[in-house]
């Protein structure tokens, strides 16, 4: 059974249809990269998967269970699906360690001690044990993003959604974050990420999804899609058109 199953997802903002019938399945342990032009609906799709956007139509199944739109359903959904944002969104009044501890303590009612130990382990995982006591504004962008990843991981999600997690970073900080994501992929974490890092996508993911105008225009293994795109839109997107011409 697939871990995540999306069927016929529709979503509009006002009169503007942004997702037009998305079907997608994600197996446990799979790493999926979504690419596509700006405005093609990648973020909206990712945000729908963890309930930050309410979909107009379609179904979302996590581990075979249908997710409704009630608050309680959303909470169950979010316990399984973590998300990392382009803008980090760390809580500025909490230290790195407290950022990671907060959700386990208030949502899962972990003791302060247990949450602290968990936070230490997660921060070690992203290579930031020595920054535990720092506040977000005392950390570089790359470090903040790694704390944000640790914060999501601490909830032990079954799927992690990553929306352009390196786009807000200075170029020299991109690699430290990608290294963490690569490590997660290697450990078997199920990942759905939107990215503009083509090389990284090619190298790390099992499945590439090309979104175009609110639809999944093409999907397949990265090797396939990159070497032999079937549609002109994808070809154009990955710049093959030019190279061939």
């Amino acid at each position, binding site marked *: 059974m697939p871990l995540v199953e999306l069927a016929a997802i529709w979503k509009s903002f006002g009169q503007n249809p942004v997702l037009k019938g998305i079907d997608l399945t994600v197996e446990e342990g799979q790493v999926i990269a979504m690419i596509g032009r700006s405005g093609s609906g990648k973020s909206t799709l990712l945000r729908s998967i*963890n*309930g*930050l956007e309410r979909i107009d139509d379609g179904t979302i199944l996590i581990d075979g269970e249908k997710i409704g739109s009630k*608050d309680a359903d959303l*909470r169950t959904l*979010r*316990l399984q*699906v*973590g*998300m990392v*944002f382009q*803008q980090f*969104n*760390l*809580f*500025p*009044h909490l*230290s790195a*360690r407290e950022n990671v501890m*907060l*959700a386990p303590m*208030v*949502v899962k009612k972990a003791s302060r001690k247990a949450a602290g130990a968990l936070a230490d382990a997660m921060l070690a995982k992203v290579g930031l044990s020595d920054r*535990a*006591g720092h*506040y977000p504004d005392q950390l570089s962008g790359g470090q903040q993003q790694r704390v*944000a990843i640790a*914060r*999501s991981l601490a*909830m032990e999600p079954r799927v992690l959604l990553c929306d352009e997690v390196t786009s807000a970073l200075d170029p020299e900080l991109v690699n430290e974050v990608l290294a963490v994501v690569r490590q997660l992929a290697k450990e078997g974490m199920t990942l759905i990420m939107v990215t503009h890092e083509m090389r990284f996508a090619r190298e790390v993911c099992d499945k590439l999804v090309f979104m175009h105008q609110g639809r999944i225009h093409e999907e397949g293994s990265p090797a396939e899609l990159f070497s032999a795109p079937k549609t002109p839109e994808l070809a154009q997107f990955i710049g093959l058109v030019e190279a061939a011409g």
Partner: protein
Amino acid sequence: MAYQFDFGSLWEYRGVIADGVGLTIRLTAVGTVAGVGLGIAGAFARTSRSPALKAAVGAYVEFIRNTPFLIQLFFIFFGLPVLGVKLSEWQAASLAMVVNLAAYSTEIIRAGIQAVPKGQIEAAEALAMSRLQIFRHVILGPAMRKVWPALSSQIVIVMLGSSVCSQIAAEELTYAANFIQSRNFRAFEVYFVSTGLYLILAVGLRALLKLVGWSLFRRRRHV
């Protein structure tokens, strides 16, 4: 004949003045704690998804902010007994302070909440936190920190405003001044001294609130 100032004659009333100052402080303390507490609840209610609740809290805030404290006080002390709610002078004065400050702090804290970046709230949602948990752990701290100076000024204003509680015979500082004035007819001296005492209270209260703010919002160094 030039007027002879006589501040010395106030000395025998020092106990009355001290009691007045004490009551002013107690009124302010009750008003602040309960008023700000209700203000936090009110600000949370204004983020609710229920339009009726939002509108009700909004109407309360606007009504209080656009009517004089003195009238609120009179309404509570003289008007409410008609409904069978009989309050002592002290109770009525405290209630008026709370009702008043609650409205102002609802509005002030709401402004602070609006300044919290949406992304932080979404991040908390993505961590499966509930609305109340997000408010309590993610929104409230930064919002309070941001509006603490405005809230402090409002608390000082309410403390100074408590002087009209003398009008329902709540025995705070102004009441004490009026009382002494009616005994020794030294109006100027009495009001001069009590004005000075209010000034000291205001300066002291401001300093105290700064200290409270500092200790509430300072970054804790332990890891």
